[in-house]
């Protein structure tokens, strides 16, 4: 009944709950200021409020919630990394993902699909075996399988890849999943917001006040905030923020591009990755093929996309799946990846007291969203690195103690 509907719609007793509260003004001081309202920043805010009761927190965002790399990745979640530090860290993240939808009361469309990393050469197969053994040692479900298993899981694949690069085997990771990335930021954001955290969008950080090596405040486009603790979770903008606090880092920015096809009937259940062909592909719940390749070949602080990328990616895609030649590309985009020399993140305390980093997340940050939030909240509260992130500290470069994770990066770089 339309009249009845109107009566409820106009009745103040039945307000439509907003996802986030809007705050007219910034307060003059906060216990913690988080820069970046992407998945990582909002997750840290959420765990600060939920686990530590710290709610006098503000999250500053230059653009809009989840508009950076949180909304630009290809939504894959996995934990079959190469180093003990990496495997333990990502495995904790995969565990956290399991009941996140329930935690938020928001459907993240978390779908367990299984993840194949294809090997086209003997040397690739050797690395897979190594990864599988490291994974199994830490209790992660990971095994090397033959080409027949790949064919069975994805019957449309040309196992010889057009004769150029026959698939010799694969690393199979059963817990590999996809999730709706925007909803992850919204879920964390709403959870933090409901507990009293303020999220300020369209608010740019212009400078960070450091006195005698300690953080004192943050200059923003909407006024000055005094605070003793700042957490920087800004992915591709990390070097700009580090310049404000005069901290040197090895982080460099290259764009990573991705694209989706028009929606088609479900035909691809697992997630497939080929480092040699620079291809990764999965099919979303809407039927779109979500596809990515490797990093752009040179530094750039922008999100332009290129035709070269589409040409290169589709060439290899057609070697694996020739029948896709008639499928249209619907849209493409790019994100700014904050790369590190050892393909591991840079997290934790910095030489500036009260300034904490959650960065260096390059092309592998989405899957780590929950565990980053959790470990960074711990680090900020205790002013000491969480045990799971000690292998990722900024100091490791000065000490020549890198955490070599390149073998497990999902795409060739």
């Amino acid at each position, binding site marked *: 009944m339309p009249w009845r509907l109107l009566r409820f719609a106009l009745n103040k007793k039945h307000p439509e709950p907003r996802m986030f509260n809007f705050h007219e003004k910034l307060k003059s001081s906060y216990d913690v200021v988080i820069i970046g309202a992407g998945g990582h920043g909002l997750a840290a805010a959420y765990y600060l409020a939920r686990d530590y009761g710290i709610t006098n927190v503000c999250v500053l965002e230059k653009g809009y919630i989840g508009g950076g790399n949180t909304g630009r990745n290809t939504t894959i979640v996995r934990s079959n990394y190469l180093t003990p530090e990496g495997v333990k860290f990502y495995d904790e993240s995969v565990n956290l993902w399991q009941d996140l939808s329930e935690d938020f009361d928001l459907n993240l469309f978390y779908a367990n699909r299984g993840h194949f990393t294809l090997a086209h050469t003997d040397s690739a197969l050797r690395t897979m075996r190594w990864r599988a053994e490291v994974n199994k040692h830490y209790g992660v479900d990971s095994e090397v399988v033959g080409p027949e298993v790949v064919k069975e899981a994805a019957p449309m694949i040309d196992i010889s890849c057009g004769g150029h690069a026959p698939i010799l085997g694969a690393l199979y990771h059963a817990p590999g999943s996809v999730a709706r990335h925007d909803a992850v930021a919204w879920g964390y954001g709403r959870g933090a917001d409901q507990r009293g955290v303020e999220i300020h969008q369209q608010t740019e950080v212009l400078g960070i006040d450091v006195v005698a090596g300690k953080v004192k405040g943050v200059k923003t486009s909407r006024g000055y905030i005094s605070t003793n603790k700042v957490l920087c979770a800004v992915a591709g903008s990390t070097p*700009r923020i580090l*310049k404000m606090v005069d901290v040197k*880092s090895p*982080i460099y920015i290259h764009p990573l591009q991705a694209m989706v096809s028009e929606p088609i009937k479900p035909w691809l259940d697992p997630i497939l990755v080929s480092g040699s062909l620079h291809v990764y592909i999965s099919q979303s719940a809407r039927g779109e093929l979500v596809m990515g390749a490797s990093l752009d*070949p040179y530094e750039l*602080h922008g999100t332009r996309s290129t*035709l*070269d990328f589409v040409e290169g990616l589709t060439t290899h895609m057609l070697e694996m799946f020739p029948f896709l030649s008639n499928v249209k590309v619907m849209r493409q985009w790019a994100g700014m990846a904050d790369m590190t020399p050892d393909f591991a993140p840079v997290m934790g305390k910095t030489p500036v007291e009260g300034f904490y980093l959650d960065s260096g997340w390059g092309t592998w940050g989405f899957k780590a969203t929950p565990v980053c939030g959790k470990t960074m909240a711990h680090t900020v509260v205790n002013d000491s690195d969480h045990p799971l992130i000690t292998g990722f500290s900024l100091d490791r470069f*000065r000490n*020549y103690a890198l955490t070599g994770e390149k073998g497990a990066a999902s795409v060739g770089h």
Partner: protein
Amino acid sequence: MKILNCPLNGPRPVSEFFYWGEVRPMPNPATASDDVWADYVFNRNGAPGVKKEWWCHTPSNTWFIAERDTEKDVVVRTYFYEGED
């Protein structure tokens, strides 16, 4: 297709080029301290700006310098290396 101007071969598609990062003076490895050397090996000026970069035109193996705005992806000029400023 983006076009880059090679000082030897003229305008060529960017796919023919190889990028080798910002031009950075190397400290003397024999005398540099571990900290100075680690800074040189690992740290980068990752912030946007107009930077002097090494590029190579791979078919002709021509190395040269490009001054490029890394925020707008606009090449200001390209020229052969002539030693440190």
